């Protein structure tokens, strides 16, 4: 019990630091609010003049914004992963990681704090996007629907942040996370159901879309937004996301324990 309490205290300390550091600069707050709204306004408006019949046939809705909402938020979680990597590299460069590692803190706690910090950061934009799409005419689902949707996004974010941290665990190079983001994010985004339904994808791309966690979150959130509640939605995507997040966190924590060092 004492051991668990000690680990919990360490996690609280490091996680709080991550959150405080996220918004150390007021410019970051402003950009974090504006960026997802711009995405919604510009990309969401691209089909605003499309014929309703086309929208209903292609997107199964006459409001592309409602279709895009869960996809946009899921795609944002891809970039959240990058922040976890950058945060670790910054701590390596500044020596702060060494400061933490000479205390009795297990490496997996450091990993967990980074992943949770980045995922929480990703969640901050969710209410702002919700507010934006509501103003643009999208009807929000029930509170339980919103909670389920946000939980799915959080799970996606945990998994993706873990992947990013895993890849950059041994690196101290600032360029790696951004290069990775360019390399990983675009294929994951376009081979998912975030922006378009997969029915019109070529067969090989559908295979990708079926195992792409961004698709799980996009499709799950979309079903909730479209139906307005969680009564008749398919929970399989949600379970996939739990599995994805658990496996990635597990691998990440194990790898951090074994390999995270400042040698």
């Amino acid at each position, binding site marked *: 019990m004492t051991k668990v309490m000690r680990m919990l205290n360490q996690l609280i*300390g490091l996680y709080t630091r991550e959150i*405080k550091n996220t918004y150390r600069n007021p410019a970051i707050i402003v950009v974090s609010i504006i960026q997802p709204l711009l995405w919604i306004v510009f990309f969401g408006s691209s089909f605003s003049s499309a014929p309703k019949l086309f929208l209903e046939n292609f997107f199964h809705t006459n409001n592309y914004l409602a279709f895009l909402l869960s996809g946009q938020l899921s795609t944002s979680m891809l970039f959240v992963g990058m922040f976890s990597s950058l945060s670790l590299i910054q701590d390596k460069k500044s020596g702060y990681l060494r400061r933490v590692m*000479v205390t009795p803190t297990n490496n997996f706690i450091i990993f967990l704090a980074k992943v949770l910090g980045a995922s929480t950061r990703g969640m901050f934009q969710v209410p702002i996007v919700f507010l934006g799409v509501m103003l643009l005419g999208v009807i929000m689902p029930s509170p339980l629907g919103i909670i389920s949707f946000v939980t799915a996004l959080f799970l996606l974010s945990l998994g993706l942040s873990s992947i990013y941290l895993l890849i950059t665990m041994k690196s101290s190079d600032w360029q790696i996370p951004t290069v990775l983001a360019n390399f990983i994010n675009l294929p994951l985004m376009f081979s998912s159901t975030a922006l378009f339904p997969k029915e019109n994808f070529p067969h090989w791309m559908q295979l990708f879309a079926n195992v792409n966690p961004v698709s799980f979150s996009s499709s799950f959130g979309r079903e909730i937004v479209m139906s307005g509640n969680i009564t008749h939605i398919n929970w399989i995507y949600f379970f996939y996301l739990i599995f994805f997040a658990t496996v990635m966190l597990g691998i990440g924590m194990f790898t951090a324990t074994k390999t995270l060092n400042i040698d």
Partner: protein
Amino acid sequence: MTGKNYFNDRELHAIICNHVTKIYDSKVAVDNVDLKIKYGSIFGLLGPNGAGKTTIIKMLTGLSSPTKGDAFVAGYDITKNSVKVKENIGWISSEVILDDSLNSMENIWIQSKLHNLGKGWKQKAISIMKYFDLDETNETKVGKFSTGMRKKLEITMALLHDPKILFMDEPTIGLDVNTRRLLWNLIKKINKVYGVTILLTTHYIEEADVLCDSLAIINHGKIIATGSTEELKSLVGGDILEIDFFSLFDFSIIKKINGVNAILNEEIFHKEEITQLNNPLKLFIKVNNAETILPRLISTINSQYPNIIKLIRIEKPSLETIFLELTGMSFTDAQEKSQELNYNNIKSS
């Protein structure tokens, strides 16, 4: 060593290293180091840059495992029980490492969480801060603090959990003379008031001389001498004359003078095969008493090589002369050589 002595040793000594070796790829950074540091002392690891001091600290603070050998800190094995080791140590870096975007209390709070301190953390922090003349109500982000204040805050954080041993890696590097002296006083105070054993690394000879009860001199990863400063100074057993000559000459005539014990860097000149007699020459000559021998020495040299002497310095026994005695190289030359080696390594990699 018998089993009983082995455990007595671990009770008496804050730090024990047995044949500790660290090899990175094929480069030996720390070579077969044996150390015993008594509880309550200030122990210095003195050596030029790249000598292996920081690698030893990394291993003793549980950040890196030795390739060979074993070590105990506060009675715990550094590889088998690194969490226990970390519970009992504090660490102060060469460059102050804090979260600059947080204020002092926020930084201390995180440290208290990492050491799982209870509600008493704040009271403890305030009492240490008051001792170091730090204002606990200061809301300013620590990034805007002066270097001295930042160092004091880092020491406060290192002492927060009552460590038995404090590791200070080059604690005064990059500080101005006044701040350095202030820190020396603080280090002595911490050792006296809090009873903490301190292991510090330094490449400032003066610092080791002023602060340390005992020390080890390290060069190329090897401990070349260890003991109290007085014990080490007695190793030299005489004065050292450092003489710069305008050009090379047959300096064997110096060795024939009564009272000259040795030419310390003679080997270097033999190794480098002197062929050009126009190069300047620097000799370190160990003598019984510099003041009495100097007139004879000057007249002997001048009689055969007039006006060849450029400069003469007298070195009384000090850590500098010990280093010279043991390595045949002045501390400054060793630093320069090490920097040159590092530069070449970077260039070739």
